[in-house]
């Protein structure tokens, strides 16, 4: 998807590499412009801007696992390349769709928390759309299971709901 011309246009910044350290201790090398998309990393780099050698900087990201980071980094990188070009919104949407389509429910949740922590708002917006889509037209039971929510209504309330309204707990769409 990334054309050679676009990668050369931002080569000056992308040559510089930054090391991100995940919650499970893994170190990942990323281009500086990608790292700058992450709010905590941006703040860290600004605070440590006097350090001459960027390579030496290790940015700790204690709330994000390496598995999630390795999903996020390619997405952000491609998204940056896409938005650098005067492309249509349709293309960006198609790219977002492609990225989110294969996500499992759990991965979706992890990515959402990570995107929230890292302040990647455009991804957060997409993920919220996907989540809303996945709970749309679904039963209460399904939504609870999907989001791992404990039902905290009192047994009386719950019994009433179940006895009088069993269909509310059946999937309206095929789950």
């Amino acid at each position, binding site marked *: 998807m990334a054309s050679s011309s676009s990668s050369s246009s931002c080569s000056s910044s992308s040559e510089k590499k930054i090391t991100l350290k995940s919650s499970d201790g893994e170190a990942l090398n990323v281009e500086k412009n990608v790292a700058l998309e992450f709010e905590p990393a941006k703040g860290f780099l600004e605070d440590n801007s006097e350090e001459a050698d960027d390579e030496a900087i290790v940015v700790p990201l204690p709330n994000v696992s390496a598995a999630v980071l390795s999903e996020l980094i390619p997405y952000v990188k491609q998204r940056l390349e896409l938005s650098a070009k005067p492309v249509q919104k349709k293309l960006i949407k198609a790219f977002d769709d492609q990225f989110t389509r294969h996500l499992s429910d759990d991965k979706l949740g992890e990515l959402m928390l990570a995107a929230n922590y890292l302040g990647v708002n455009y991804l957060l917006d997409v993920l919220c759309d996907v*989540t809303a889509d996945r*709970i*749309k037209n679904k039963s209460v039971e399904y939504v609870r299971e999907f989001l*791992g929510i404990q039902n905290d209504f009192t047994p009386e309330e719950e019994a009433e*709901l179940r006895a009088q309204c069993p*269909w509310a707990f059946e999937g309206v769409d095929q789950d």
Partner: protein
Amino acid sequence: MAAAEPSLRRSWSSDLPIELLSEIFQKLTDCEDISQCAAVCLSWRSLIRTLYRQLTSLQSPFLLLSSSSSSSLALASASSNNDKKQCYSCTLFSTQTKNLHQIFLPQLKERWCSSSSDGWLLTIPFDRKKNPSLLNPFTRDQIKIPYLGTFCKPQDLRVVTSTSPLDPECVVLAIDGTNLYVCRPGDKTWTPVMMIHKCNYGGFNWGDTICYKGEFYADLAGQIFHLKFSRSGSVEAVSLPVSSTGPYGNNYFVELKGELLLVRVSQKYDVYRLDWHRKRWIEVRNIGPNAIFLGKHSSTSLCVSKFRDDFEENCIYFVTNTRDVVVHHLGTNNYKTLYHSSLFCKIPPNWLRVESAEFMGSKDEQIDYVAPWPIIEEHFVKLLHKVAKNGLLALTWEEMAWTSIEDNMFEEFGKRYTVSKLKSKYDHLCRLHHEFSKLLAHTGMAWDPKTNIVRAHEDVWESYIKKNPLAKQFQNKGCEYYHLLDETIAYIQSSQSYNTKIELKIRGVLDAANMYFDIEGGKQSIVKNKRRCSLNDLNNLCPSKRSKTPQISGNESERSPLFLEHASIEECIQILEAMDDLDDDVYVKACEKFTSIDWRRMFVAMSNGRKRKWLHSLK
């Protein structure tokens, strides 16, 4: 679906910040999904409860079509799954998307439902032996209201609430034929509304009712009644002195952009707005980029511009006797049918509208000091002056006096300003007055009360404003009601005791207070000449400046001609009376004009011939 550890699943959703969850709810475009989410867990329900006025899926009015058992027929066409026929649900028609939504509500078991205010449903048990309830179909909140005994047909019982029934301050009004009842959530019984001069209206059923700016109004045979809540807890329906709009018809009240509208539906639609000040209905031919939704149980209005092509502007959406919904354009008089009720539908459709956050916000707007509201202000100042003159603003009477001022303002302008807001308005006026007194005492400032302009050299102005930035407002125009305020404050201070000084201090008029009270002694020593205005004292304090500002100096006798209001109402009326060939109509019109000091000054200054020309132009 990937099977994962339950513990892991629990972790991510519980970590989900509330803003993200709100974001997700915002993206749900279907009101059914909102209602389902409210059943997931307590925290989701409470989040939806706080959000639901902002949710995009609930912004437009719904048509409540049918409920519970009666819904099965209507649903057979809407839903492919016939197994759901026996469920308890209500069916909503979205006027925006033109889709049908079925909301499952176990609370509707063996109950009728109709719409109430603000998106709530009124549910009435079939056997009528249990209490009716108010039910919010979106948040699934339910509030019991007192048992109503035997009443008219359930579909004729109407309930209007002053705000969300979850608010403990909420007042619920039930309309049952010829009777009105009120209660608050949690009450055990209803309080009947008393009627004054009932005999004239015996036999008439109550027409439409509305809660407008926190007050209830009801229509009875074309006359508008206001419900007055007394401190003892009783409620009276008082006829408002507003002339009726003509022959009795189907009247509907609706609030549009903060104004109270009355729509009379006969062969055509006549829209009127209430002019509170002049106490009459004024015909409105065009309602602009808005739509009005009229129904027996609740009516609402909407600004169309936010919805692009989903609604038509300058239109009335009306539920007809045949239970269809027609859209009537006020400009072209064309109409079309929005929704055809099925023949099997026994209950007429009704509007269900969640009031949007903006609307709720605009309901208790603050008194705006900046906006030019000269009529209201003038009335307020004169009222204060009158009350103070009678010595009613003394400490012991103060609360009662303020309540009566508040009542008077309400009667005059149809808006509850509340005592605290009026007091703060008064404080603001006191500060203005104080600021202006200070300004007048300054060297080189000359105020002409006739034109209400302060003349001074530019340098004087500049240096004065630098020191007193608040004085900037007087650069173009002086203190409008300076003399009236001056007297009012003098009256109040003369009738109040030394103790009040603390209060005056809080109100920022300590300087003025000091002039009337002996600071040294704790006793109630009031300066002998209590009617002297503070200005004179200021001048006494700075005698050196006195000679330079002759316009504002002097003792009582010198002052009186100056402070006797030029172009006073009395003077103008005298001139009017002298013109013996004047129409009564013109006379009344002129009197209306004379409530403004500007018109009075112009009138007095005119030559006699011009005066007549001007009077005739008022016709």
